[in-house]
Structures are given as structure tokens and as C-alpha cells.
């Protein structure tokens, strides 16, 4: 089947139109298009978006295939409406050489559910001491442009400066995990009223904000662009806003969970809420939503972090940090941004597809829904409401903080270059 | 308070806390003057059987057995002209039905100064029923000392024993059916003295 007609879809949330896919590209967008020779998908008022792009995913392969593989992770991505994901470098071995990034890249291509763009480590072994072979990774088949030691902060100011400078040669970007290590020794949750009561090690907002402040100034000084991973505090928002107003080339992401959840949930000591950066306060959540709406924060990125059951079915201190997010991201964004009136669907397309593709230079992704563009598309039933059932996840892991929570919206179809990866909510 | 009959659980709990009357259909079987009279009789019997009651120690079982014990002690003092040691013995932690109810607040165990070793201990309770309270009291005594002998005085014996236990001094034998309730009200706790015979509300 080479032709698909999506009939009556609200493209980017606007008035219903028909979209005709021919082969790998969008052939025509308009009303009353002929279904002749095409498989018809009745969109029936669902919202059609460009395929979502996640700049921050942990696929765990190689090394932790017990929690996720490229196959299960990309199936989860397709299930959540994504057509491209950027795979973080903290695998075993670390993605700090051309060999590892090419392996991950090829696995993604071979499985065909979602494009996998590997992120390269900034420093060898994520250890923060010696720069990894950033150029070699860029020149590899994987064509790495985003570099990050995510999970660890590039805390040494000189190393950070050098990395920012070095990647300019090939248009790369360093994505910083902003966490001052000394201020977060023994940190287990946001430092504040709740941590004081629960006796859990505090993770001060300033540990994030001080690194962001330093890095935007470094980026300004050396004339590089810098990307801030999973921004989580109101103070971080203020710093990024200030940096942008100065013309610094900074971009920032926020995770769906930081748009919805607060540290009050930690009172249950349930490690499903243990995440890095930690869940913050209501005030932070509201500031993050506002910043995403006004563009201070450029994108939503999932920080999809799968962990096996046993790493969460334990006491808080022993638990791993992270949450799965690919399959619930759009629902959480609808709940927190669209249904609250902060963002239109066109805005969602911008924050979850256009901008992340731009930052990561993901070719063929984040393109307009118009004739001649690659047919990377996502169809969303925005009227749907249902409670989250992790048993239905395509991800190998189930560590979602939303189990049993009612959320709006459901991705019904995903197309990757014209090939359906998700049909009626089922993976192909 | 003998409340351990499994068919009559926690009977003491429906006893009015203060000054109230029993259920509408409850009828008094002993009034204030009767209670005073039977206590006097019991006191005389104790003196008689204990040959002057010189080594008697009275131990009331909380709550109402303690008040009865104190009243008996006063009467014994009147009769003998000596002070008779009186105390209390809480049996809560010795009950055999602990796992059938939520735990209760503990009452005070107060053993008079010279202890109970070699003495004649007279246990005092308001109602003798299944006998399980007294069994528990004997166990409790065992952990406190070794009396020369132990006797039992009760205001009312309503029958239906479940253990081979009998009272040495009985204020009134009151044949009852298991559907009936016996409530002892005492001025110290309830504002008036009376014994009420009623019918169980929820069989």
C-alpha cells in the first residue's frame, strides 16, 4: 500500500483537512481529496501533528537490555507518537566512540519504528575529565550533533568551555545536565519543606541554577549554543529568560513530569517518584508551564528512563532515578498545557516536533504538514480520556508515575516516512 | 468484672458510665441499701472464716471490684478495729480473649505495702460469670507473690461458669439466662448503687 488518505484531520488543531500520503512523502493537503487507490484513515476530528521528536531518551542498549532495548524503546516511542528520538549516551559501554553510536543508530534504522539519533558523550566515560572524540562521532554514520554527559553534569568549567567551543566546528550542541555535584551529595529529593519533614537528602534548586547561570555565560563568552536538559525550577526559568534576552544561544527543555508532578508525592516514599532532577514544588511547576508557553523553554523532552521493577520496588534510598515517559508524554502535555489553555496544538507541534528537530538537526523531522514533506505524522484522539495502565506499555519497563491516573488524549496512528508504525493504537 | 464469656463479649462496655439508668426494660434486683447490707454480711463472713481477718489483703478487680474492695475494707475495719490492706489487681494483660478485641487501656495494679506473700488474698469483683476473669486474676497473682490462700468475694453470681471456679462469698445468687445482662452500678463510678437485670439489646 503506497497511498494513504487521512480524511478529516485537524492539522495542527486547525479546521479539518485531508492529507494524502504517497510513498514516503506527503502528496497533498486539502479538502475533499480523492481516496482513489488509497487506504483511507478516517481521522474524524482527531488532531494531526508532525511526528514527535524526543531530544532526551534513554534506550539503555547496549548494556541494560533488561530495562529497555532499541527495539522496545522505539516501539514505545512510536506508540507515543514519536518518529525520532535522541538516545542518551549513558549506556554500557558509554556512547563516547564512533563505534557505539553507529551501533545504536543502525539498530534504530533496522527496527524501523522510529529514527534513533544517538547523542554522544561529552567526556570519556562520562567522567568529566577528557573530551570524547566528538568530531569522530559527528563524522560517523550516526552523524552525532548533540553531545551530553546526561546523568552527570559537565561540572568542570574548563571542560565545559572547551566542549562548547569544540563542537562549533561542525554545528554541534552540548546538552547540559545541570547539577552541581558538591551541592547534591547525598541528595534524594527537592530540598524544601517536604525533604525537611521526610528526612531525605535535599537537592537544592541552586545546584541546578548555578550551573545554568555559569553555562549560559560560558556560551555567551565563546559564542556557542548550549542546550539545557530537563530544566526543573522557577529560578532556572528566570536565568534562561535573562540569557535569551541577552541574545545568548541557549535552548532548554522540560520533561512532562516536571510539568505535572510535585515533591508532595514523595511523601509516599514510593520510588516511582524518584527522578533526576527531582520533582519540585507547585510554584516551579507553574513557572515551567508558563515558560514553555511563552517560549522561554523551547521544547518538551521526555527523559524516558526505563528501570526494571526491582530497581523501584525497594526503599527510596536504594531505588534508581528516572521515569518512563515516551508513551505518556503527549497526554501529560495535553493535560498541563493544552487543556489549561496555555498552548495550542500548533504550539505543541512546535515544542514537541519542530524545535527539538531543529536543536538536534534531525533531518526530515519537525517539518510542516504540507505537500512534498516527509510523511512523519502523528494522529491524536484528543477527546479521549482514560487511566494509564502500564501493563499496556510497549516499553520493557513500567516505572511510570501515572499508573491509574486519568489523562486525556491518545495517539492512534504514527507514520514514519509514510510507513504506519502505529495503527488504531496498535503497533505494526 | 467478669466479661469474658464469648457469648457476652464486652458486657461491661454497655454499662452506663455515670449516673445513667440501664436500658428501659432493665429492672433493679439489688438497690443501694441491699448492696450495703450484703457487703456488711460478706465482711462478717470474712472475719468469721478468716478467724479475725488478721492476714487478709483485699484486692479489687478493676473497675467496680476496686470500689467494692474499698467498701469491704471499711466494713472490716469497723468490725475488727484494724486497718485492712486493700489494693487493686488489673487482669487485662492476663486475659485469654485479648486477641478477640482491640486492646484496652490498662487499669492500675496496686499491691498494698507489705505485699501478698503468706497472706490471705480475697479477690473482689462485681459479677461472677464465666470465671475467666478470676482465672486471669489467679495468673496475675502468681506473678506478684505467693499468698497463703486465695478467696473470692463477688456481689452477684449469675451462673454460667466455664471454668471450675466458685466464689467463697456471694452477695446475691442471681439465676440468669444467657440472653440477660447484669449491670452493677456503683456510686463511685456511676453516681448511684444498683444492680440491673436486663435483656441483651442485640442478641
Amino acid at each position, binding site marked *: 500500500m503506497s497511498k494513504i488518505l487521512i480524511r478529516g484531520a485537524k492539522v495542527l488543531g486547525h479546521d479539518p483537512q485531508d492529507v494524502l500520503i504517497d510513498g514516503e512523502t506527503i502528496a497533498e493537503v486539502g479538502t475533499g481529496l480523492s481516496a482513489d487507490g488509497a487506504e483511507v484513515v478516517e481521522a474524524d476530528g482527531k488532531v494531526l501533528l508532525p511526528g514527535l521528536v524526543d531530544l532526551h531518551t534513554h534506550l539503555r542498549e547496549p548494556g541494560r537490555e533488561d530495562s529497555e532495548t532499541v527495539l522496545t524503546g522505539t516501539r514505545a516511542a512510536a506508540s507515543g507518537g514519536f518518529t525520532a528520538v535522541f538516545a542518551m549516551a549513558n549506556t554500557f559501554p558509554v556512547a563516547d566512540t564512533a563505534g557505539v553510536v553507529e551501533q545504536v543508530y543502525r539498530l534504530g534504522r533496522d527496527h524501523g519504528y522510529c529514527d534513533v539519533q544517538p547523542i554522544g558523550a561529552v567526556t570519556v566515560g562520562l567522567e568529566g575529565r577528557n573530551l570524547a572524540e566528538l568530531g569522530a562521532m559527528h563524522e560517523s554514520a550516526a552523524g552525532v550533533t548533540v553531545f551530553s554527559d546526561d546523568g552527570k553534569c559537565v561540572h568542570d568549567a574548563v571542560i565545559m568551555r572547551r566542549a562548547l567551543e569544540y563542537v562549533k566546528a561542525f554545528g554541534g550542541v552540548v546538552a547540559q545536565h545541570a547539577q552541581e555535584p558538591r551541592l547534591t551529595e547525598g541528595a534524594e529529593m527537592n530540598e524544601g519543606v517536604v*525533604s525537611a519533614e521526610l528526612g531525605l537528602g535535599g537537592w537544592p534548586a541552586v545546584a541546578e541554577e548555578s550551573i545554568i547561570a555559569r553555562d549560559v555565560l560560558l556560551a555567551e563568552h565563546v559564542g556557542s549554543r548550549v542546550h539545557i536538559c530537563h530544566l526543573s525550577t522557577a529560578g532556572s526559568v528566570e536565568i534562561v529568560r535573562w540569557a535569551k534576552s541577552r541574545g545568548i544561544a541557549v535552548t532548554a527543555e522540560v520533561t512532562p513530569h516536571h510539568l505535572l508532578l510535585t515533591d508532595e508525592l514523595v511523601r509516599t516514599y514510593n520510588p516511582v517518584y524518584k527522578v533526576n532532577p527531582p520533582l519540585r514544588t507547585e510554584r516551579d511547576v507553574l513557572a515551567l508551564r508558563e515558560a514553555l508557553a511563552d517560549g522561554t523553554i523551547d521544547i518538551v523532552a521526555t527523559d524516558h528512563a526505563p528501570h526494571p521493577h526491582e530497581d523501584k520496588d525497594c526503599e527510596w534510598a536504594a531505588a534508581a532515578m528516572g521515569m518512563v515517559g515516551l508513551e505518556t508524554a503527549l497526554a501529560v502535555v495535553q493535560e498541563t498545557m493544552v487543556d489549561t489553555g496555555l498552548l495550542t496544538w500548533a504550539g505543541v507541534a512546535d515544542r514537541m516536533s519542530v524545535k527539538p528537530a531543529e536543536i538536534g538537526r534531525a533531518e526530515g523531522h519537525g517539518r510542516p504538514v504540507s505537500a512534498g514533506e516527509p510523511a512523519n505524522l502523528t494522529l491524536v484522539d484528543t477527546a479521549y480520556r482514560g487511566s494509564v495502565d502500564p501493563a499496556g506499555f510497549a516499553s520493557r519497563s513500567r516505572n511510570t508515575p501515572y499508573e491509574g491516573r486519568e489523562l486525556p488524549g491518545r495517539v492512534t496512528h504514527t507514520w514514519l516516512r509514510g510507513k504506519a508504525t502505529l495503527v488504531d493504537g496498535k503497533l505494526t | 468484672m467478669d466479661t469474658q464469656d464469648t457469648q457476652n463479649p464486652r458486657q461491661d462496655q454497655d454499662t452506663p458510665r455515670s449516673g445513667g439508668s440501664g436500658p428501659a426494660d432493665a429492672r433493679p434486683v439489688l438497690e443501694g441499701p441491699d448492696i450495703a447490707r450484703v457487703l456488711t454480711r460478706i465482711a462478717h463472713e470474712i472475719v468469721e472464716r478468716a478467724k479475725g481477718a488478721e492476714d487478709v489483703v483485699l484486692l479489687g478487680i478493676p473497675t467496680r471490684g476496686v470500689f467494692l474492695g474499698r467498701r469491704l475494707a471499711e466494713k472490716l475495719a469497723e468490725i475488727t478495729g484494724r486497718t485492712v490492706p486493700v489494693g487493686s489487681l488489673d487482669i487485662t494483660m492476663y486475659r485469654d480473649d485479648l*486477641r478477640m478485641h482491640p486492646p484496652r487501656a490498662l487499669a492500675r495494679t496496686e499491691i498494698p505495702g507489705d505485699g501478698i506473700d503468706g497472706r490471705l488474698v480475697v479477690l473482689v469483683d462485681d459479677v461472677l460469670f464465666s470465671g475467666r476473669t478470676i482465672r486471669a486474676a489467679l495468673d496475675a497473682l502468681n506473678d506478684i507473690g505467693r499468698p497463703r490462700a486465695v478467696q473470692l468475694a463477688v456481689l452477684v453470681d449469675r451462673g454460667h461458669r466455664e471454668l471450675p471456679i466458685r466464689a467463697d462469698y456471694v452477695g446475691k445468687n442471681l439465676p440468669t439466662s444467657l440472653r440477660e445482662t447484669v449491670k452493677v452500678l456503683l456510686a463511685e463510678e456511676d453516681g448511684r448503687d444498683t444492680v440491673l437485670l436486663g435483656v441483651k439489646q442485640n442478641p
Partner: protein
Amino acid sequence: MLRHLISAADLTRDDAVLILDTAEEMARVADRPIKKLPTLRGRTVVNLFFEDSTRTRISFEAAEKRLSADVINFTAKGSSVSKGESLKDTAQTLEAMGVDAVVIRHGASGAPYRLANSGWIDAAVINAGDGTHQHPTQALLDAFTMRRRLVGRDAGLGQDLGGRRITVVGDILHSRVARSNVDLLHTLGAQVTLVAPPTLVPVGVGSWPCEVSYDLDAVLPKSDAVMMLRVQRERMNAAFFPTEREYSRRYGLDGDRMARMPEHAVVMHPGPMVRGMEITAEVADSDRCTVVEQVANGVSIRMAVLYLLLGGNEPAVTHTRTEEKSDR
């Protein structure tokens, strides 16, 4: 129903007074020739200690044995736990042996809460100290000691600590004893003041039902009881304070400072004391210091808690806070 004792904050005023009153009766058992009650005959209690604490374990063990419970002691050192077995597996192994209650001491804050609320086991859970979170039986024995000293042994029955001024001095940040005491003493009507160098007070303390002061001398004359907390020497290396000498000069309790307390006021310490650091030998050995009483009272309090949670078919204390609830 409070099936578990996880946090002092879970206790209502009436629960707490019931526990103190019950402990007062339990204390009298210690004066008897046979210091044993048959109450928990046939019940099995395991003392599950992932952290060394001989004194707390012995106190629980004495309480359990006085109530005739069968006692299993499980210490993590040298056990399968050090070989990587999880808390969940350990607890389930113990429960398979027919355990009615688990007394748990754990280095991780919230471990007892997880044990009680994760559906791993059915047994009652009693928190014997978790990380820097809570140590509810310590707070109860402290309140018991205060009530005896400040209100009276018999006069105290049924009473709380309404209007008493309690000062807690030392490493508040790392102290589960401080957290438990603030919660419980507040519930019992006392006014609590925390005194510490600002580095040893947690961010977020403003939401606690107490005052915070950095000036010990200003607070002492207005204290009915002063509780000195242990300050570990290692804290010095993490720059919480410059030197041991400076700490004791500013926040240690010596004879001169004790003389500034009201005459009836007592000095408390949960032990183990670091003499010369937070407390001088002169104070530690004085009549006003209740350290030894606190140890004895610990057994009575733990007997009361065990009786009230396990003595019946359901617990006798009510429930207020912590059920896992789904938030917004």
C-alpha cells in the same frame, strides 16, 4: 486504625496520652518480682536491624520478652542483606516464618513506611529509627520522661505536656530524634524551640510546628526541659561547624549554662552522649540529667506500643495521616 507505628506525626493527642498512660502501668511491672506478662504469648516479633544500634535493639528485646513474645533478632551485618538481598526479600522471608510484627531500624529514610505500605508483608511495622526521618518510640519515651519529671508520675496520668517549653539542641538536620520530638511534643501541647548552628537546621524548617533559635543562652532560662542531641565529630569535616571547641563553646551544655536553667528544668539526651562535645561530664552526671531514666523508660514505652498494636485483634490507637494518597 493505626496498624503500624511509623512516624510520631501519625499519633493523635489521645493516642499519645494512651501510650504514655499504658507505659506508666508497664513501668510498674519492672518493680515486681516477676517482670513478665503473658500478654503477647504466641506472638512473634522480629527485630530487623539494618543499622547497628545495640541500645535500641536491647530495649525492644527487653520489652518484647517482658510481654512474652517470641523474639527473633535479625542484624544485617554478615547476613544475606550484605550480599545484596533486598529489604523486600528479607521482610518476606521473615514473614514466611510467621512473624506478627517487625521492628525495623534502617539507614534509609522511609524504609519502614515502604515496608508497611507496599503490600510486601502483612505484619505490623514498628519504626525503630529510619535514616534522618523518624524515631517515634524515642520521642514517646522522651515525652514520658518529661511528663514524669514535669507533671508527675501519677499526676501525669491522662495529661499531656500543655504549655511546657522544650528546647532541643544540636544536629537537627541529621536527627530523626529531633523530627519525632517536634511532631510529638507539638501534638502534646508543648512549645518546642530548636537551637543549632544554622548549618545544622534543615532548609524547610519553617513549616515545622516549632521555633528556631541560634542562641542557646537566650533560650535556656525559658526552658522546662533541654534535650541535647549528639553531634558527630565527622560533621566538622563537612564544614557544618569549624571546630569541636567552637561548637561546644556556642552550643554545648556545661555547668554554667545549666545553672541558667529554671530550677525544675531537666537535661535530656537520647544517647549515646559525646562528652566534651555537646555536654560536659558535670552536666551528664548531675541529678538534673535524665539519661539513665530515659533508658529505663524506653522499655516501658516499647512495651506499651507493642501491647497497643499487637495485644488485641486490632490496634488500639487511631489513624490520622499517612495512607498513600494519589495527589493531583
